């Protein structure tokens, strides 16, 4: 393993997810389901899982990545 791509993927999804969820909470929303809040939350969870997996992989391998 050289460089764990789960770091940038996870971090980007956490940040975008937070932005989208915030738009869903505070911004104007069309009628119907609040897609911003819902999908923002999904992106946050996905980002968190990616970061967690990357962190676990780094801990289990003896030499640090990157």
């Amino acid at each position: 393993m050289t460089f764990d791509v789960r770091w940038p993927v996870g971090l980007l999804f956490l940040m975008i997810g937070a932005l989208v969820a915030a738009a869903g909470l505070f911004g104007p929303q069309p009628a119907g389901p609040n897609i911003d809040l819902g999908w923002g939350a999904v992106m946050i969870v996905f980002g968190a899982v990616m970061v967690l997996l990357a962190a676990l992989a780094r801990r289990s391998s003896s030499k640090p990545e990157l």
Partner: protein
Amino acid sequence: MHMGAVDWGILALYLAFVLAIGVLAARRTKSGTDFFLAGRSIPAWVCGLAFISANLGAQEVIGMGASGAKYGIATAHFYWVGAIPAMVFVGVFMMPFYYGSKARSAPEYLRMRFDEKTRTLNALTFALMTIISSGVSMYAMAKLIQTLHVFDIPFEHLGLPQAWIFHFAIVVSALVVLAYIYMGGLRGAIYNEVLQFFLIVAGFAPLVWLGLRQVGGWHGLQTTLGPAYTHAWAGMAHASTNKLGVDWFGLVMGLGFVLSFGYWCTDFLIVQRAMAADSMTSARRTPLIAASVKMFFPFLVILPGLIALALTAAPDRPGAHAPASSGAVATIAQHEPGVIPIKMDSSTGKPMLDAKGHPQLDYDLATPNLLLRYFPTGMLGVGLTALLASFMSGMAGNVTAFNTVWTYDIYQAHIRPEASDEHYLMVGRLATAIGILLSVASAYLASQFNNIMDLIQLIMAFVNAPVFATFLLGMFWKRTTGHGAFVGLATGTLVAALHHGLTLPVDSLVGAKGGWIMVMHSYPSEMAQNFWTAIWAWSACFVVTVAVSLVTKPHDETQLAGLVYSLTPKIGGDKGPWYGNPVILGGIVLAVTVALNLIFR
């Protein structure tokens, strides 16, 4: 819909991450192997996702949505008959020779197996094809950004003319792709492709969910559009009874066998991703992992087209108008436009009419307009970022394939054979810049012609279809000779050109669409002509290669170990769990694909 601050923020975050990945990948890019092959160090799942992304360019995301609106769910044949079986084949049967031969490119395999002239012929046609397709991808993106009007307001604020949006889109995307490939080479491209893959899914999955909700689910689509759009195999017995205009034989042979195998099994833009894998097993798993995800992509990229059509065709639905076939243009213009707009002639500003005088729909805007209409600020940023990501991944795939083929198969083979690794690394970086410049040039060239998309389909039938016969015979028939391969490949390409010159789809004009020698036969659709061009080209290459091989001197068999199936020891003892075994994985993927075909028959 206009972009809000959140949407700009998301777009900016994406660009920052893409460049950051380029910088991080650059730290590990010290040799030619690093730059051109990502150090052969990438885990299988990363290669697999990059494998999907590299193909997920403009033609795929926009084109599949457009075809979905035009032909219905039958578009899924491109996946369930075409791509998936071919991806399983390359993983199970061909990857041992690509990866095992230690070739650095697909043309280089041809040099090891056959000779220099076969490699050079393939390298030159391939290099040309990558430049043109990356240029067309760039052109399609710039055109789309201009048409969607998302940059109109910021450009107005800055006091810049609206015409500059097109140039701005081309220059910015070219610079970003140049930056991360120049720095990180194939590794930079692959890591970004993984990021782009997840973004594309994140941008399109909620669009499909929202859209299906709007049209009343799959059943709603079936009742609105009818069986012709929602059954993939209905009417495939004859070319005249289905929307594609091909019969099942042309479909299975032309698309399923020749074109798809030709693309997925020999196109270096695709194969390069698997060659970067960290082991033989990973290399073989790469296409299979990709296939197990890709077989569900019709739901992500084709369904939006069907949904957009349903929202255009059903007048009682909110935001929809009467279908274009209802007649007078003036009355349509007064209604709120449907999701799929009427195609406008850019030179006259009038709607484009078909042969019967009805206005034509601009299917290319099906997916993007659905996104603009149903995504609120926030998701809009994610959706547009997904579109941008798909354009960049498609372009980057072409550029990394181009720089490798140019450096190893043209420059090292013919211009400077004995230089240091640093020299070739430098040449590779230079080739990246030159490749992108040529792509920009071909993007502007594309804007001069309105039929450039047909041209690219054509080039693929010319280049990929015959070369698949060359690889197939090379890998599985030890008697194939270099002279046989070269003459066969040249003949196959020539026959493709001849077939194209002698046939024409109905209702088309002689020229870029065919018939430029004389019209001997006319096909019910462009797709049928394209499939049959491929079938003829492949068959000609196959027959001539066999014939010439039989009358020329065979290769020394000891030289062919690791390059030909019958002379290579079997790969046994795959370590790891049973589901990691390429053969079992391939079998599962095929079984699910058959099931999908049956469900949507």
